[in-house]
């Protein structure tokens, strides 16, 4: 039976949307990826570098095997994948149905530009009279209403800003390919009713709106308006509120009764704004305050019109929906705006600063003051702008701003020289990731970034100086007031829910938290309140890249589960591009044939011939012996043109094709079709986008341009000449998984994989499973951990696809391309050889534990670790009711020389325990001694709660750590109050140390599977940002505490992420390599193993029995370093081998 292919809709094509989409597409499901904006890539397109490396690595998200199915270039240029359909300028309207059967309505902006015709020549942009703020540069520069969506976009096609466009038609007139088509008459169809008792208002509004091409009718009273509405229908009504007789609000109600879809905009004097707001609650769309600027009216009208235009929805049937709409940033100009954003010169948001320093930004790679254009030397970053500030309605922390600011400061220093003075003003430095603390220390010590613990109250211009510099007044920890001058102040603006997404969520009854962020279920970072709808990335709260990517993958896993449970199929990688036996034979024949190249040049309706001497080009290329034929054709982009080409191919019977044309007709999918039509592999078609080169050099003389194109074509001909027609390699791949570790991460990973239909062996060294969860009672949110664990264990133990090996350890493991063999060893069984498991992927979920207290002297329950405390309280060995004073010491043995990382969970745990104690015994005095309170994200609420409950916090300095002394039955804690500048002594009944988390991943174990450990002995990610659960060995993953310190919820998310990363391999019987892939010529190989050592992916290994180098073609990414390191040429990069390279060099130099 032919079952349907699973399909998921991913709403939001930023970082996390791309991750979810790719994970599913790689697994073999269909994905519809939509985004409301005009380009994909989201926020990251605007950032050149990201923390915690100050580097990029976005491209590392791309598929690793079957690479030819997707684009292989910088993601800022765009993305395509055979299994992903991308719809831009598209929004989600509604969702109906159940998981596995969702009906989703979308609305898409009408496209006035036919992207298949647009050559990106830029003429339209030149003539466009409208200049608006360029949102890509955060408004720091201007752009036209017709523009290129993002500077690096792969497609050169222009797009139109519908709200800014005046429909003057200049672009339509000038477009040389006729790609722009306005449907101007449509505005006439848009009927507007203006209701006002003042004639002058009515008339002038009518005039303004008519000028824009709308149909306008006026009425002088509500009664009249209603009468008119009986006659005909209107799309929009503008009504005054204060009118004699029926007032605007009443009219609104009555009009809505007649026409529910009518858009109503209220007009009112400033004093009566309240009633306008009330009217909005009754269904008015918006309001205008009188007197208003015609431009405001027009803009608002256009917005409504635009909605009207795109109201026609597209309906999609999918199995699951992933919401990945990301986040928005707080707008500092709203509210009290104490920092004078938009008022004072040189106050910018973090995003604006990113644009200021970007190579594609307004400074063109140089840092200049956005207002005065003077060079910038002193820069300050203000943290918590719109976060941790109830004055802006933000009782939460935004998670990543501290790190973003550190990165920006480092980048400013690195890019623009050490003369830049960077100061970061902060409250708590929330370096909550594994390597974040180290990053901060490096910024401080190596980059000389100044960190000042102070909150700036407001900002003033230094009027005395008169150079636009800003002065910030702050108080240091010692109470001294300082006034510092800055050229530029960067506001680290906090998170706000993504508007459209929240709207969509509310409309579709998806629960949000008190601030409007999507609420996810208990112990899940991705499940929303509505089954079948998942939240990826930052939608449920701002996340750093690694966490966004993790959640995106976790969301993909849930979608995968839904599709599997709904019985949906995947497109097997091996079947999709399947080449049957006959084809294989043809290809084999072709491989032995001499190349016969057909070179086709498009004259593009004589456009090219004006700039190029096509005939001389033809005669040059004709001299290349393998060039069977060089043809000049016209308008390849049209269907007729394309047919001529196919005819020509059939006539000349070439086995290679080189195509010189413009971008639209060399789009990948057409080439694919062509390959099929002509009977050869698409990779044997080489294409040159001539128009881009012509566009780049508008003034180059014909002879030079011809030369240039000649050279470019010759390189391609050279490539075609040496292309290997043999199809991509297929590697048989084992479809079982091995999960090592039976903690919550291991359990989740195993269950997730098993739920998607693959067999899992789970190995646990102890005789119980559950790991750390066994000793935990409740989360800070009050969730019952035992109940959760019991349910998971029950599911695991009863799962038909899971085999559990308790009291078992890993004896040894050996990897072969496509399969890993692991020898198990059961505790107590000494003589027998253990069981060998063959598997395709390994998930290292070996966990971690709370660091012991050093030295652990006390057994009187006076000095405890957090874990010990929680256990003794559960056992009632300590009764909270009997305690008078409890002291908690944070960062006890972490964030120091020995364990230089933040363990992330201890502050939350301390807050949980403090609140627990206060709940059980309101009289107990709890003191928390901390360095930086890491109550990140929405956990900030618990910090506030603890304070409200009367918990007293003492901040201490890492140089001056608290000490404890046993005094009979009390513990004396000595610390120093930094603010009061005095020593403090507390007599406590009990002292609880937050000792941090130690990973439990033996180096030998990691090593056996080709994974590595980082400097902190956690699992080393292939890329800490973009591949956060992968190792460099593409078959090995990690999750939970062996990966990084994390909460239960986060551990579950990493496990789900690891699961989908594994499933995308397990779902294929055979993995397909890329066309550009390493190979070895064994006959001339000396087995020096230089290639083995140099391969970053471990794709090469030595087969000791066969005495040869073997390559895992799926692991190989085609970088070619192996070929460069091999002196004999036995290591080769198929597709870009030395013959081809040397020939290309010859070609460009001839």
């Amino acid at each position: 039976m032919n079952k349907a292919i699973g399909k998921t809709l991913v709403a939001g094509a930023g970082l996390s949307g791309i991750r979810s989409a790719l994970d599913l597409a790689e697994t073999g499901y269909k994905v519809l990826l939509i985004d409301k904006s005009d380009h994909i890539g989201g926020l990251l397109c605007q950032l050149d570098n990201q923390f915690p490396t100050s580097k990029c690595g976005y491209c590392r998200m791309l598929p690793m095997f079957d690479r030819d199915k997707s684009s292989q270039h910088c993601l800022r240029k765009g993305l395509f994948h055979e299994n992903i359909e991308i719809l831009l300028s598209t929004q989600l309207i509604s969702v109906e149905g159940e998981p596995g059967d969702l009906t989703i309505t979308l609305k898409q902006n009408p496209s006035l530009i036919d992207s298949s015709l647009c050559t990106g020549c830029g003429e339209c942009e030149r003539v466009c009279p409208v200049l608006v703020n360029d949102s890509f540069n955060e408004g720091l520069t201007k752009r036209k209403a017709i523009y290129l969506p993002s500077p690096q976009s792969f497609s050169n096609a222009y797009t139109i800003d519908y709200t800014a466009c005046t429909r003057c038609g200049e672009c339509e007139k000038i477009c040389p390919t006729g790609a722009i088509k306005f449907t101007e008459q449509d505005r006439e169809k848009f009927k507007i009713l203006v209701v006002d008792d003042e004639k002058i208002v009515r008339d002038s509004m009518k005039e303004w709106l008519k000028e824009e091409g709308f149909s306008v009718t006026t009425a002088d009273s509500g009664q009249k308006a209603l009468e008119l509405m009986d006659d005909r229908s209107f799309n929009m009504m503008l009504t005054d509120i204060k009118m004699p007789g029926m007032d605007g609000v009443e009219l609104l109600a009555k009009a809505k009764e007649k026409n529910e879809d009518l858009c109503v905009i209220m007009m009112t004097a400033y004093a009566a704004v309240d009633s306008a707001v009330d009217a909005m609650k009754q269904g008015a769309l918006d309001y205008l305050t009188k007197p208003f600027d015609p431009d405001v009216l027009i803009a608002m009208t256009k917005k409504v019109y635009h909605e009207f235009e795109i109201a026609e929805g597209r309906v999609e049937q999918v199995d699951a929906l992933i919401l990945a709409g990301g986040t928005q940033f707080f707008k500092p100009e709203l509210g009290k705006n104490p920092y004078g954003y938009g008022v004072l010169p040189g106050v910018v948001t973090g995003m604006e600063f990113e644009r200021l320093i970007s190579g594609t930004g307004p400074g063109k790679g140089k840092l200049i003051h956005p207002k005065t254009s003077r060079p910038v030397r002193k820069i300050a970053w203000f943290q918590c702008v719109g976060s941790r500030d109830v004055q802006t309605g933000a009782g939460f922390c935004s998670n990543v701003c501290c790190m973003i600011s550190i990165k920006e400061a480092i980048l400013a220093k690195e890019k623009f020289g050490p003369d830049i003075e960077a100061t970061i003003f902060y409250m708590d430095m929330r370096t909550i990731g594994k390597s974040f603390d180290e990053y901060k220390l490096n910024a401080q010590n190596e980059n000389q970034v100044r960190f000042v613990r102070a909150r700036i109250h407001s900002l003033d211009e230094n009027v005395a100086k008169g150079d636009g510099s800003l002065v910030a007044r702050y108080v240091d920890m010692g109470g001294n007031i300082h006034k510092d001058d800055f050229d530029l102040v960067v506001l680290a603006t906090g998170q706000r829910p993504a508007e459209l997404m929240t709207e969509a969520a509310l409309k579709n009854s998806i629960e949000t938290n008190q601030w409007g962020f999507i609420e996810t279920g208990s112990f899940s970072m991705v499940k929303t309140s509505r089954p079948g709808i998942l939240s990826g990335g930052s939608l449920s709260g701002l996340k750093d890249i690694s966490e966004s990517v993790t959640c995106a993958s976790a969301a993909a896993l849930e979608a995968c589960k839904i599709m599997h449970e709904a019985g949906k199929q995947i497109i097997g990688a091996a079947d999709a591009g399947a080449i049957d036996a006959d084809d294989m034979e043809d290809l084999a024949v072709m491989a032995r044939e001499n190349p016969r190249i057909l070179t086709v040049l498009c004259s593009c309706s004589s456009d090219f011939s004006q700039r190029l001497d096509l005939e001389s080009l033809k005669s040059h290329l004709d001299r290349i012996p393998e060039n069977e034929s060089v043809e000049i054709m016209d308008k390849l982009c049209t269907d007729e043109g394309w047919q001529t080409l196919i005819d020509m191919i059939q006539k000349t019977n070439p086995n290679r094709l080189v195509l010189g044309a413009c971008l639209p007709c060399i789009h990948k999918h057409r080439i694919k079709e062509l390959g099929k039509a002509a009977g050869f592999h698409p990779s044997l078609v080489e294409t040159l986008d001539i128009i881009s080169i012509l566009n780049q050099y508008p003034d180059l003389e014909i002879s030079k341009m011809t030369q240039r194109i000649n050279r470019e074509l010759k390189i391609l001909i050279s490539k075609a000449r040496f292309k290997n027609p043999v199809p991509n390699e297929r590697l048989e791949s084992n479809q079982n998984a091995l999960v090592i570790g039976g903690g919550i991460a291991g359990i989740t990973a195993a269950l997730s994989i098993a739920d998607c239909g693959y067999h899992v062996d789970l190995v646990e060294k102890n005789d119980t499973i559950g790991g750390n969860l066994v000793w935990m009672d409740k989360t800070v949110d009050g969730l019952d951990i035992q109940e959760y664990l019991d349910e998971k264990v029950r599911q695991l133990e009863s799962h038909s696809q899971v085999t559990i090996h308790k009291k078992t350890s890993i004896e040894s493991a050996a990897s072969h391309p496509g399969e890993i063999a692991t020898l198990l060893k059961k505790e107590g069984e000494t003589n027998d050889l253990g069981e060998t498991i063959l598997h395709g992927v390994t998930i290292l979920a070996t966990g971690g534990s709370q660091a012991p207290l050093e030295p652990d002297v006390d057994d009187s329950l006076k000095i405890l670790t957090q874990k010990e405390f929680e256990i003794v309280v559960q056992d009632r060995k300590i009764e909270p009711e009997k305690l008078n004073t409890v002291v908690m010491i944070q960062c006890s043995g972490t964030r120091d020389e020995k364990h230089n990382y933040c363990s992330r969970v201890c502050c939350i745990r301390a807050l949980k325990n403090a609140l627990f104690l206060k709940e059980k015994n309101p009289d107990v005095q709890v003191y928390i001694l901390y360095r930086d309170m890491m109550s990140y994200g929405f956990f900030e609420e618990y910090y506030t709660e603890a304070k409200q409950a009367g918990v007293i916090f003492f901040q201490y300095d890492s140089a001056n750590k608290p000490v404890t002394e046993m005094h009979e039955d009390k513990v004396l804690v000595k610390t120093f109050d930094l603010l009061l500048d005095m020593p403090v002594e507390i007599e406590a009944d009990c002292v609880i140390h937050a000792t941090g988390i130690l990973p439990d991943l033996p180096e030998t174990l990691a090593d056996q599977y080709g994974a590595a450990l980082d400097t902190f002995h956690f699992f080393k990610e292939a890329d800490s940002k973009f591949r956060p659960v992968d190792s460099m060995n593409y078959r090995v993953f990690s999750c939970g505490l062996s990966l990084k310190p994390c909460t239960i919820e986060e551990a579950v998310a990493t496990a789900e992420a690891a699961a989908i990363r594994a499933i995308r391999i397990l779902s294929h019987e055979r993995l397909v390599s890329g066309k550009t892939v390493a190979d070895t010529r064994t006959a001339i190989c000396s087995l020096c193993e230089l290639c083995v050592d140099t391969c970053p992916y471990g794709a090469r290994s030595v087969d000791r029995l066969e005495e040869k180098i073997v390559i895992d073609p799926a692991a190989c990414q085609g970088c070619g370093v192996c070929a460069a390191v091999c002196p004999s040429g036995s290591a080769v990069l198929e597709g870009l081998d030395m013959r081809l390279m040397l020939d290309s060099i010859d070609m460009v130099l001839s």
Partner: protein
Amino acid sequence: MMIKIEHEDNSLTKGLQQFFKRLLETREIDALFLPVRLKDSSSIMPSLVTESVQVDNAVPLSPAFPLNSGRMVSRLSYKLSGRKTAVLLRPCEIRAFIELIKLKQGSRQELILIGIDCPKALSSSDYTAYMEKDPLDDDAYIQKVFSENDKTLNGFNFSSACNTCENPFPVNTDMNILLHGVDLSDGMIVESASETGQNILETLNMQQATEPVKRDEVVAQIKEAGLKANEEMIKDIEEKTNSITKLNSFLDRCINCYNCRNMCPVCYCKECVFNTDVFYHQPVQYHQWAEKKGAVKLPTDTVFYHLTRLAHISHACVGCGQCSNACPSDINVFELFKSVAQNTQAAFEYSPGTDENEPPPLSVFHEKEFEDIIGIERE
């Protein structure tokens, strides 16, 4: 520890032979690998010896250096044989072998490396001529070469490599036979250089020796002389090849026979890339080159080949001079190589053959290094 090898029948050579026989008889080793005068021949070739009696033909110290045995030892050791072999190598042969170990072409596991103060060598062509014209006997040669530091022998030239060698002393071995600074009338000294070496020397039960007092001084003198000669040689060769035009003329007799690379001990490739299909050009290619330049010499890619070889292994050049020895056109490839090797080795602070744990410079990298070469600022 140090032991003494005494004269046997008033002969140093026989004394050495005796030492090797004892070594073979200890059962610590199964075979010896050392230069042996072939039966009924004047040729001295490295040979694998298992019979004690065969040691009588061994010439451990001779002016003949037909090939760098580092290569041969790699053949003996790239896989396990189940036999233990003691190999006697010249310092440059040891260096070559150490480089080959790094490239997984050999292993020390079953070897006892015995080094020797280098007895120098004549170039292969001079050696043939020398042998025809009243050569010195083996002992006399030793006496002469270790007492004088001449550049010639009976009017024949020691090879350029030997005359410009700044390091004719063994390192990285299990034991070394020392002659420089040793009173040869009293015999020679064997010093242990590793634990294995020491154990073996102990089982030999031979007379202990003391450190030769003058050795350091002599070693320093020889090194200095070598350095000076090397400097002059490099100045000279640089002058001869400091432009592409000059390099063209320097190599104009090259017939692309690839003997230099075949005999190079560190050119470890089974097959040189220049012998593969990459350089088996299409006929039309030759025409195209000819059309471009007016004429093209065949075989082509001569300078390309030499420059590539410099790029591939100059960092590993041990300065044995076998490339020049092997050249049928008498091109002094060695001098060309050494002059470049000096630069490349200095650039990576790499000294080939001295430490088998030092990775080849192009197989490793550091995140922060050579930052001065990044960018287009003029140097």
